[in-house]
């Protein structure tokens, strides 16, 4: 009699293999005449101007409903996501509750039009209002708005609010600079630039953050705003942030707190009490709504009273016994995106926050910091693994930036090779670092409060195993993955205008040209 698989010591390491369907591109599944959807007969159709009529049918697949469904389910099965272990730093991977999904999938939210009369929107507006109150309580801010379609869009919202605030004081032409740090998320400098500001980026110093002196030398009458995160993605908290804010306020600038790394400081600090004028929470990550591979997302943007007049419209407000959408806001920046936000994500985030309560949020913060330091300690014992700013002996917050530079020097295996090989064990690709890499061969795991100690241990054990492989059998690591849905991509043609193809049309055309040339 064979032992149950769970008793085999290596089962978890060796047992994984991705689904592999060798699935064609959907266009290749086409067979002329097949239908996946039909509609009632239209009857007489009005005449249209000849210049407006389509001449050639769109080259879309012709397939049955069943074949279309199976195709996309095959593709979903070849997506690892959080089916394995995903400790993807900076994204704070949480449980995406099924009750949240069920609530928003019902007609009572899914089949609601945003321009319905507010009398018919009282349920969703009440959730917006209640959740606004909760975020105000957590941050100390006076008002939140949920229109921004992601964290970066909330940073952009801040840049737009900054323009309106300074314009209202007649100072916009003068205040043309936004200051940030090299450890801020790329969306802070990018949205500041897209909103028309010049970007000044502060560099890191000995303590893992820029000095107050460096900040002071960068600010002045041209400063419109400061945009920073804290802690940063290395788990380092800037203890001088209050002095930073005083300095920026002293020259007339606004201070924006990118609260993407809220998990570690949740229920301990409040953005407004530190002095910030505005902040942003990522509802799709920090508040348990799914990331979905890249949205739909919500950057909940909150601010203090002095910026409220400039917030995007409409705002959800309490009116009598009910709730209304306030559009009558003459100083508002208007829209950063149509309508009033990704309501399903707001509802899911509200559901998550209600399921947690104040005590659950505190527990989540505690567990995420505890788990990170536990990981940090165990990873530090692996050969060739170091971390940023090793001279700082303080415990890190909810994540730590590590490096496998030594492994790369010793074996030629880079952090990307290691990440690829780890997927052979059911671990989704690691988060490395945002650009620029201030730490060579970086990786940034974040355990959060969801993952069990066993999952965290497994993750570390896999990394240990892969590092060992790198030293004894680097070829296996460098050619990984071996148990994936497909093999490693050849990256050489992907940046070549003659070969890149973002559509099947382009691919066919370029293949045809390449074959003709041969």
């Amino acid at each position: 009699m064979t032992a149950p698989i769970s008793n085999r010591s290596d089962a978890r390491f060796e047992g994984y293999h991705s689904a592999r369907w060798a699935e064609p591109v959907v266009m290749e599944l086409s067979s002329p005449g097949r239908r996946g959807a039909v509609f009632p007969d239209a009857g007489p159709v009005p005449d249209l101007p000849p210049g407006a009529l389509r001449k050639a049918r769109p080259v879309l697949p012709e397939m049955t409903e069943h074949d279309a469904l199976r195709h996309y389910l095959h593709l979903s099965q070849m997506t690892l996501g959080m089916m394995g272990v995903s400790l993807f730093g900076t994204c704070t991977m949480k449980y995406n509750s099924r009750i949240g999904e069920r609530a928003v999938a019902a007609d009572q939210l899914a089949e609601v039009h945003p321009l319905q009369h507010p009398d018919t929107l009282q349920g969703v507006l009440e959730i917006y209002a209640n959740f606004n109150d909760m975020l105000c309580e957590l941050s100390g801010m006076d008002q939140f708005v949920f229109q921004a379609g992601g964290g970066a869009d909330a940073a952009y919202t801040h840049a737009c609010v900054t323009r309106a605030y300074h314009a209202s004081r007649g100072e916009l032409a003068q205040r043309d600079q936004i200051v940030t740090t090299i450890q801020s998320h790329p969306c802070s400098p990018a949205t500041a630039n897209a909103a028309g500001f010049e970007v000044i980026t502060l560099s890191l110093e000995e303590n893992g953050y820029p000095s107050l002196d460096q900040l002071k030398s960068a600010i002045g009458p041209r400063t419109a705003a400061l945009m920073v995160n804290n802690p940063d993605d290395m788990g380092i908290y800037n203890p001088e942030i209050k002095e930073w804010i005083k300095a920026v306020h002293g020259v007339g600038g606004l201070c924006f707190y990118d609260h993407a790394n809220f998990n570690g400081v949740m229920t301990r600090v409040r953005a407004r009490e530190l002095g910030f004028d505005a902040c942003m929470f990522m509802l799709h990550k920090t508040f348990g709504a799914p990331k979905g591979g890249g949205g739909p997302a919500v950057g909940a943007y909150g601010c203090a009273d002095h910026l409220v007049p400039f917030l995007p419209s409409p705002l959800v407000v309490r009116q009598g016994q009910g709730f209304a959408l306030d559009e009558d806001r003459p100083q508002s920046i208007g829209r950063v995106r149509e309508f009033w936000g990704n309501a399903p994500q707001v509802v899911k985030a509200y559901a998550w926050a209600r399921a947690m309560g104040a005590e659950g949020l505190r527990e989540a913060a505690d567990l995420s910091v505890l788990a990170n330091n536990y990981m940090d300690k165990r990873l530090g014992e692996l050969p060739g693994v170091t971390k940023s700013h090793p001279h700082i002996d303080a415990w890190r917050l909810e994540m730590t930036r590590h490096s496998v530079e030594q492994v790369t020097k010793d074996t030629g295996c880079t952090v990307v090779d290691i990440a690829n090989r780890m997927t052979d064990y059911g671990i989704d690709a690691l988060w490395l670092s945002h650009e620029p890499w201030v730490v060579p061969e970086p990786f940034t795991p974040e355990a959060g409060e969801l993952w069990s100690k066993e999952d965290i241990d497994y993750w570390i054990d896999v990394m240990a195993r892969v590092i060992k492989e790198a030293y004894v059998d680097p070829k296996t690591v460098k050619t990984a993955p071996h148990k994936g849905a497909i093999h490693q991509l050849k990256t050489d043609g992907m940046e070549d205008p003659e070969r890149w193809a973002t559509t099947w049309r382009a691919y066919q055309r370029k293949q045809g040209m390449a074959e003709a040339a041969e």
Partner: protein
Amino acid sequence: MTKPHPWMANSASDAKQEMLAALGVNSVEALFGQIPEDHYHSGTFNLPRQLASEVELSRHLNDLLSKNATAADNLCFLGAGAWPHYVPAICDEVVGRYEWQTSVFGSPTSDHGRNQAWFEFCSQIGALVEFDFVGLPVYSWGCAIGHAVRMAARMTGRRTVLIPAIMDPERLSVLRNYCEPPEMARHIDIVEVAVGPDGCIDRADLAAKLNDGVAALYFETPSYHGVIEADPAGLCQAATAVGAEAIVGVDPLSLGVLEAPGAYGATIAVGPTQPLGVHMNAGGGVGGFIASPDTERYAREYPTLNITIAETIEEGEYGFGLTLFGQSSYGSREEGKDWTGNSVYLWSLANAAYMAAMGPAGFEEIGRLILARARHAAQAIDAIEGCSVDLSRPFFKEFVVRFDSANVDTVNAKLRDQGIFGGKDISGEPGIDGQAALYCVTEIHTDQDIDRLVAALKKSL
């Protein structure tokens, strides 16, 4: 914590104690030493009671959301940026998959299936609009317009965009933010081109405003008021003749019957993705696409993440990975093209499944059906004493209903009492004298629904 939380494995005390022991500390509090004392919030947090049990949470959410009235239980004739369309069941099944909902970023191998589905979204949009380059989706149609206009400004070095004088105020407000206030050095001037009595762009006014300082002409077909442009090729040709980009906004559901922008000389196409298998979601279903020729002039200005098909190291096998990442804000921070970030990528999977199930014949049928139903509804409404619709205009899905004396707000309130969401009140908007509403009729509306609307309108005037 009185009980371990179902969503936090380590809230059961053994795991916590083991990790504390491994770190050699007695309490979690010791791990927060980086935060100075005076940064701590001194009080407690006044949040509503914890609902850790799913049975309580489910009841609570249902109690709240059931206060909404829905387009499923009422007849909905609202459009204007979010439209009541039929969402095939397979689209819900596809976006409900946990693998896709929980995917972060992954790698071309670990999240291969999702990357392929992204590529198929782009490929099928490309087939509809007849363009070879399509980026991953952006937040909304308005945001797609904003990015396309900024692309045009960078490509041409010019700083004026022409838009129709009648444009959806939601999209226009988004565009104004993208074009920056006049104080900014890279401000883009927005100049309105008159819309003629036929609802199309006024060619004489366009000619007067097109010059070698114009970065782009933007127009929509169907327009905000639903009007189908009679000569989109002529408009594009007029723009490109002065070196401007011709950016066209299209409803993808119209493209089984209306010509593809890539076929009549547009240089960039944008549009909404919500009609392609995504619920309205109280406005949370919106998304936008950007498409263009696949030349470096265009490709190198995309702010989006872009996914390309590529070979793997295994002969004959292909996969999908990012291209032109370096020009994104992730790759180049403030040197990047505008910015990108989490967008509406999960919806693109519903869009991909929708387009695959529809196929060319499905798009043709739904296009004809919407044309016919909207026309029928418009004729029936026009026949009501006190209402009128300009039936000389060819329109798709949406049309303007003018009221001789009735107030739209009052009419809509009466319609609500009869289980009908009337058209969007556009009284006072550009191009509208008097009282008017924008009605939307799609494949979901039956002849009986139109009869019900007509009867209710008659009672409400």
